[in-house]
């Protein structure tokens, strides 16, 4: 009887081991699939022009060559584009945080006429295609003289993005309603409840929204390319596109493009790792 149990438990651990081995194999495949492109670009950014033309293709550079980085940095005025993008992104992130938390508070902690209906409307606007609103928006911004400036990229952030409102609302709903009641007894009005009681509790979701909106605004190429028209206002994404078109027109330096891809991705990777904790 005991021998039987022992062999049963042995086969159970063997099964478990097999399972783990299979999981790790698949995880390794996934790792290569998702990370290899990034690895390849980093390696490529350190290759000389000659390295790219060798057969068979080399994975690692023949020697670490850092020259691609300064040439990429100066081939397009990336310094200015980085400053421009940082200004646009930081002002937008502040706006998203302020507006999403105010509106999210309204939709979750206050009761008023039309609340549920309006929230359904808000959710359904998330499905409205970008292309169906972009042309009148462009004309509207042109009429008030905003086209060519950063305003169309920044100002809408202060008027509540539905996705972030939804996130804020879901988080506010998890907080106990007794908090509001207690604050009310202490003589707090709605603004006080929002600002002093609830907002300090929403730090985790504010951090999430900050990271999402940072990445979304930084990579929002379509709107940048539609609204911006002068070199002095251009962004990192537009700079990268310029570099791409230079290369497409026969400027044969793949290492340069790869170096630019690496240093323009660094802010996103950094913010992502900061967000991990």
């Amino acid at each position, binding site marked *: 009887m005991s021998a039987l149990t022992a062999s049963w438990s042995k086969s159970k651990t063997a099964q478990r081991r097999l*399972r783990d081995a299979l999981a790790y194999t698949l995880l390794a495949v996934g*790792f290569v699939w998702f990370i290899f492109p990034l690895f390849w670009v980093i390696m490529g950014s350190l290759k000389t022009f000659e390295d790219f033309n060798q057969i068979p293709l080399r994975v690692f550079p023949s020697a670490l060559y850092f020259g691609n980085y300064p040439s990429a940095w100066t081939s397009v005025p990336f310094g200015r584009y980085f400053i421009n993008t940082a200004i646009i992104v930081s002002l937008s992130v502040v706006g998203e945080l302020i507006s999403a938390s105010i509106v999210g508070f*309204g939709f979750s902690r206050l009761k008023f006429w039309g609340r549920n209906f309006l929230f359904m409307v808000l959710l359904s606007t998330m*499905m409205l295609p970008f292309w169906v609103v*972009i042309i*009148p928006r462009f*004309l*509207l911004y042109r009429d008030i003289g905003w086209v060519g400036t950063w305003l169309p990229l920044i100002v809408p952030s202060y008027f509540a993005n539905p996705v972030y409102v939804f996130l804020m609302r879901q988080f506010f709903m998890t907080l106990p309603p007794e908090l509001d009641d207690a604050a009310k007894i202490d003589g707090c009005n709605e603004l006080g409840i929002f600002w002093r009681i609830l907002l300090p509790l929403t730090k985790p979701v504010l951090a999430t929204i900050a990271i999402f909106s940072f990445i979304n605004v930084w990579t929002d190429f379509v709107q940048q390319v539609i609204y911006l028209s002068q070199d002095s206002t251009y962004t990192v994404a537009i700079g990268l596109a310029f570099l*791409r078109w230079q290369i497409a027109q026969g400027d044969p330096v793949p290492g340069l493009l790869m170096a630019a891809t690496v240093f323009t991705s660094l802010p996103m990777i950094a913010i*992502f790792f900061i967000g991990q904790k």
Partner: protein
Amino acid sequence: MQNPRTVASNINWARLRPHIVGWAFISPWLVSFSFLMVYPFIASFFLSFTRYQLIGEAEFIGFESIQRMLFEDERVADALRVTFTYVLLTVPAGTAISILVAILLNQSVRGIPFFRTSFYMPSVIGGVGLALLWTTILAKNGPINAALGLVGIEGPNWLFDTAWALPSLALKAIATAGAAMLIILAALQGVPQHLYEAVELDGGGEWAKFWHVTLPQISPAIFYNVIVTTIGVMQSFVEAFIMTNGGPGTATLFYGLYLYRQAFEFYRMGYASALAWMIFLIILALTIVNFRMARYWVYYEGEE
């Protein structure tokens, strides 16, 4: 003795107050909803019946743009064909892969946080950077062709080959479906453990657990992903704009790219508005079909 009128109005104010406060709190959204959603949505409908090239007045031309779009402009048909093919290439495969990867990340083995971070990394880079990254991967003398060369296959020049350009973009889209993966992973972690125990009691194996518990439980998350990615992929733009410029020929002429060119390269605002309304109606129809089909495969707690 107070005037009854004043009393009535006092009571009304007290009653009205929470509603006013509520509307005040959501007012930032009401502003963007009115000016950046409702107004443009309606305006683009009316612009569809005009000719407007940014100078002078919009000129009413009735159904001319719509007729041209539906029956005369062959590029529109090309763009629709490319876009639908792209949806079919990316949404089912992307969904399947994000489910598989999420299940993999839900295993109780060591090092999962590391793998989760690395799998999500490409989605973080996003936009133009990610498009450029994949441009170098798919280059004629890039690593994919080098790997194929090792097994004796001579790979095509992916992005410049009429047959391969669109599948190449689809491959890039599938390899970067990090957000979908995380949503399904969250759903997996919410599956109640006792359901698995119930299957075990009935003598069911791993497959039974997956088929009768996991899949129904995560089906709302899968459904959400299908809706969101279909809507997103129908509007794709950056990949084609950066990686292929719509080419070769019209092989990767996404609808979004064609619309962008009409609006912001040729300044045909009226025609582009008609194009925009057509893609809106198509996306709406697809979304309705998706919701209808959900009845047959999406499981909601508390339903029969």
